[in-house]
């Protein structure tokens, strides 16, 4: 695989249903720009990504890959209420912001970059699939630097998240980001592998060749039984249980990988995730 180097990483972990003005105040730490017609999803995107590239020089053609499970839930619900409950036309900017790629737009505008701008989703594997797009573009030479992040609001009701995911994890607003380049100079880590498997047997076969690993972490749908089996195969020196420590959002993987970069110097992480269909995705990350 063509090399992808991580130059910085950051995760913004927000309390569910935090006052939007609080998020705006937090954002002032990273940019003097005033954001008027923006919503929670956009602010989370800006917060996570600005934190990630704070005081870094960005090439004007830096690409943005925004991955998300649910996109802009809150404002979409508001606009539906304007139409169906208030019996009115929606507010223009409210309607425009139901399109979740506006978050990636405001980020690019704020950073002064005009590269590729993609918003992509894939049930429970959104960040991993986004990384696959990045890998294609880097291998192609189409992109040389990019921001890739996973952003999701905690707007879904707790009982719904429990029904889908279980485990009793705290629901959070999550925004995890990596600033990546094809260039190694100044990097703090690297993406060593992005793998996809259609079943657990082929995934297990591949990861057995990786054992023993420094650190392992699991995505939301890996249950306790399966995690035990994977631990046995991998013999990890440590486990990073970011879901228990930091909470769950649709973009937990992005937050988990970003937090690993900040917390585990000199280690290699194997992050193992799966979707409802039993497809597996593994990201191997080295922190220098």
């Amino acid at each position, binding site marked *: 695989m063509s090399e992808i180097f991580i130059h910085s990483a950051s995760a913004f972990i927000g309390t569910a249903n935090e006052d939007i003005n609080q998020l705006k105040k937090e954002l002032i730490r990273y940019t003097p720009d005033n954001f008027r017609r923006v919503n929670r999803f956009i602010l989370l995107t800006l917060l996570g990504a600005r934190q990630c590239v704070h005081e870094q020089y960005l090439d004007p053609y830096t690409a*943005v890959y925004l991955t998300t*499970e*649910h*996109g802009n*839930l809150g404002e*979409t*619900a*508001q*606009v*539906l*209420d304007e*139409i*169906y*409950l208030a*019996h*009115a*036309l*929606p*507010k*223009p900017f409210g*309607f*425009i912001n*139901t*399109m*979740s*790629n*506006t978050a*990636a*737009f405001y980020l*690019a*505008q704020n950073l002064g*970059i*005009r*590269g*590729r*701008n*993609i*918003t*992509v*989703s*894939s*049930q*429970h*594997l*959104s960040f991993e*699939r986004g990384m*696959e*797009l990045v890998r*294609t*573009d880097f*291998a*192609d030479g*189409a992109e040389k630097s990019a921001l890739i992040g996973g952003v999701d609001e905690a707007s*879904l009701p707790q009982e*719904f998240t429990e029904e889908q995911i279980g485990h009793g994890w705290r629901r959070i607003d999550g925004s995890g980001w990596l600033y990546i380049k094809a260039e190694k100079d100044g990097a703090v880590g690297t993406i060593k592998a992005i793998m996809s498997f*259609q079943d657990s047997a082929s995934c297990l076969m591949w990861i057995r060749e990786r054992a023993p690993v420094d650190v392992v972490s699991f995505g939301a749908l890996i249950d306790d039984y399966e995690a035990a089996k994977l631990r046995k195969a991998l013999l990890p020196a440590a486990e990073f249980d970011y879901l228990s420590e930091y909470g769950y959002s649709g973009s937990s993987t992005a937050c988990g990988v970003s937090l690993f970069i900040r917390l585990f110097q000199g280690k290699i992480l194997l992050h193992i995730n799966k*979707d*409802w*269909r039993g*497809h597996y995705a593994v990201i191997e990350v080295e922190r220098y």
Partner: protein
Amino acid sequence: MNGRKTYMTGKAMICSLGDSLKEIVDAVRSKRIRLAQLSFDLAGLPYTKPYYLIQRNEGDKLANRSEQYFYDILYSTVSSAIADAGLNGAEIRDMDVFFGSTSMDIPVFEGNHHRMMSTVSGMFLQSSYGYGKIAVAIMDRFGIGGSCYSFATACTSSANALLYASAMIESRRTKRALVVGYDLFSNLGFYGFEALKSIAAEEYRPFDKNRDGLILGEACGAIVLEGGPRKSGDFVHLGGANLCDTFSVTSHDVEGSIVAETMNRALKQARLGTGDICAVKAHATGTESNDSTETAAMRRVFGNGIPPVTCVKPFVGHTAGACGVIEQILFTESVKGGFIPSTPGFREVDEQLNLQPVAENMEAGVGNFMLNYFGFGGNCTTLIISNKASMG
């Protein structure tokens, strides 16, 4: 030698013109258009606006629609595209899905709410399984075993799905791809564009002096892309590009510099020069700003030698995130039928633009073509396709 080579081996679509490609191309050839008038009852507004509605039978009526209808349209289109490509069971399993839409499954929540004791927003918040749900439903239904990617980049969604499907086949990350563009009628979209004052009063007239906006349409389209041709005449994806114009969230810079750069990058990737392009399928929303920007950009790229420009939205409407797939099928099937489509509704040149799109069907042969797509959030996507390679 050109850059990428990914072949369009299967295709199907359902739109306001029908659900058979022959019927649709015949309608385009003879400039037949089917426009409905829809009201804004929920907002109590005393007028109607045009919309390109699917109107094949009773089941298509808005009042009769349900979740079942949403998935029937989707599965029927995908099934036809797979049949058109002639894929066998093993080939279907060995495929990735690239899905693009603006409204995603909002029409399902809107359609269901009358039958459920919940508000639309309540259903949306409690039942949303995310943007990826529809692609997964396609995979489950057809036994597709690969990965799925759902693009949400507003009106460029399925164009970007095509861009990536093509790139991943070319880089041998995937053998074949099913690319779906789907946007069904939603009040969210219809009322939203009305709130923006973007909907034309009566007629779609891109690039015309008296253009007054866009007219939305609903459609589902599916394309099978593979690394080799199956039939003589299969179109080839040669390359493409995507950039972000940060001028404004609603419109692109009227000077057209980023839009032009996107076109130039796509040409470069396809290893073609401007002189190699036989015709341009413009995005042509018919809004004042889009058409000005797009014309300025084409002039930057092609100078005074802009190739023939066609606009296919007047036939099926602006199908939002689905337009990448829908307009590619309309364009390629028309070319296969021997013509580059006219632009119905265009009557008078706008002196400010000084651009005359193809007014009558133009004879089409073998060549390279540029397809342009733009969207909210500054998204710009250009695809370059050709029918040269597979015609020998």
